[in-house]
């Protein structure tokens, strides 16, 4: 993971990301007057597919909008909160919509004493599994998600569309959020469901 322009991004070495470590066009090329913001993790990245086949690309194309994908691989709530808060303080131009998709909300980021690196914890490690288990039992993750959602509630007035995957925790818990049930990895199905919902609601909003 890396920090560029006050945003947390993925490691740039893979060639899959822009210079900020995000899977989309460069920040400087984004049309801030007409864009959708994607937040989340692996679900929004679909790293095994070419970008043109991923639902962020398909949705933006369908809605004739630009988009930016803030998602960080296995970044969990810490990266989501960091990037959303930073984005909203950095850019006064608000997105048309936020689209959230998350696979592992309770992921953990680790570092060393001098913060020479940031990376997602290795869940093959028994100690990390135990940490995760204890964090669940003692209410750490509930607390982390509750605090983050209290901030989101007061920070974001943009419509939020949340892709809900079976047995996956949601990022946003507010009743204001529009939840849409989807099948994991069904890029076209997700793109169609979300695009249709956004179109339907924008039509309803017209006088």
């Amino acid at each position, binding site marked *: 993971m890396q920090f560029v322009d006050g945003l947390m991004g993925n490691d740039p070495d893979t060639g899959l990301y822009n210079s900020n470590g995000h899977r989309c066009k460069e920040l400087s090329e984004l049309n801030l007057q007409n864009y959708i913001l994607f937040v989340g993790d692996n679900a929004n990245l679909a790293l095994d597919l070419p970008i043109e086949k991923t639902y962020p690309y398909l949705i933006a194309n369908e809605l004739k909008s630009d988009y930016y994908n803030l998602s960080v691989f296995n970044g969990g709530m810490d990266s989501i909160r960091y990037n959303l808060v930073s984005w909203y*303080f950095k850019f006064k131009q608000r997105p048309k919509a936020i689209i959230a998709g998350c696979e592992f909300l309770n992921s*953990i980021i680790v570092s060393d004493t001098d913060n020479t690196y940031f990376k997602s914890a290795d869940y093959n490690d028994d100690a990390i599994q135990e940490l995760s288990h204890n964090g669940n039992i003692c209410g750490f993750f509930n*607390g982390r998600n509750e605090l983050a959602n209290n901030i989101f509630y007061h920070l974001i007035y943009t419509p939020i569309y949340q892709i809900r995957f079976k047995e996956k925790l949601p990022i946003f818990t507010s009743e204001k959020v529009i939840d849409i049930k989807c099948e994991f990895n069904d890029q076209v199905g997700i793109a169609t469901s979300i695009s249709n919902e956004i179109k339907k609601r924008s039509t309803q909003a017209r006088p």
Partner: protein
Amino acid sequence: MQFNKNFIGNPWPNKIMNFLWGTDSQELYLKNAETQPTDWYYRDRELIYSYNEYGHRSKNISDIDLDNYILFTGCSHTEGVGLELEKTYPYQVAQKLGCDYYNLGLGGTGIDVVEHNLIQWFLTVQKKPKHLFIQWPDHSRFISQNNNPRYTNLVEEGTWAKPNSETFRFIVGAEESGFNFARKELYKRLILEIANCPVTTVGASSNMPYDSSSIYLFQKDLARDLSHFGNISHRALADDILSSIIV
């Protein structure tokens, strides 16, 4: 702790009290008084804790001179547990600088609450403070929430957890895995990213160090609860802060 509107605060908003739960309880005070000399500073002195609408030991935001204020946040050291208001370092620094102040300090809380309340501050209050003082608490502390959806209060967790409990094992694991090192740096980076005002970091010598540029609160005496640092300690910290920010 609880949400008092958008801020996290003590669960006794708008209350005036002489004692608190925890180290500065009346019961402990009476016990401590038996061990102290007859001229003990706190023997016959009333200590007033006055909390605002958010459960912070501060004036309400609407009563603050937002054109001329400084902002403090931290744990019990900054809240001033065991101290008269006038003896706390935030009060003394603001007095000397001739400005108003707001104190977000909350006893028992950790870096997650510091970050949360600062983000809410910058979302709620459009006018920036002239200076922000962050006393980062022990980084192993966190807010937990019980799995029972009817239980809405936020619980402060820390190294006082029962040994061998899941909470205690989580704290140890978070330390050993490097999770806490990541958390504290993420919180710090985000606040520095959005604060857009001068920031001074304050450390308490009883906690793990936060960064090398911190100004430290050292124990030179004890507060009424014989646990937190006392009047002389806070005076020294206020002096150190003032000498560091006044050219």
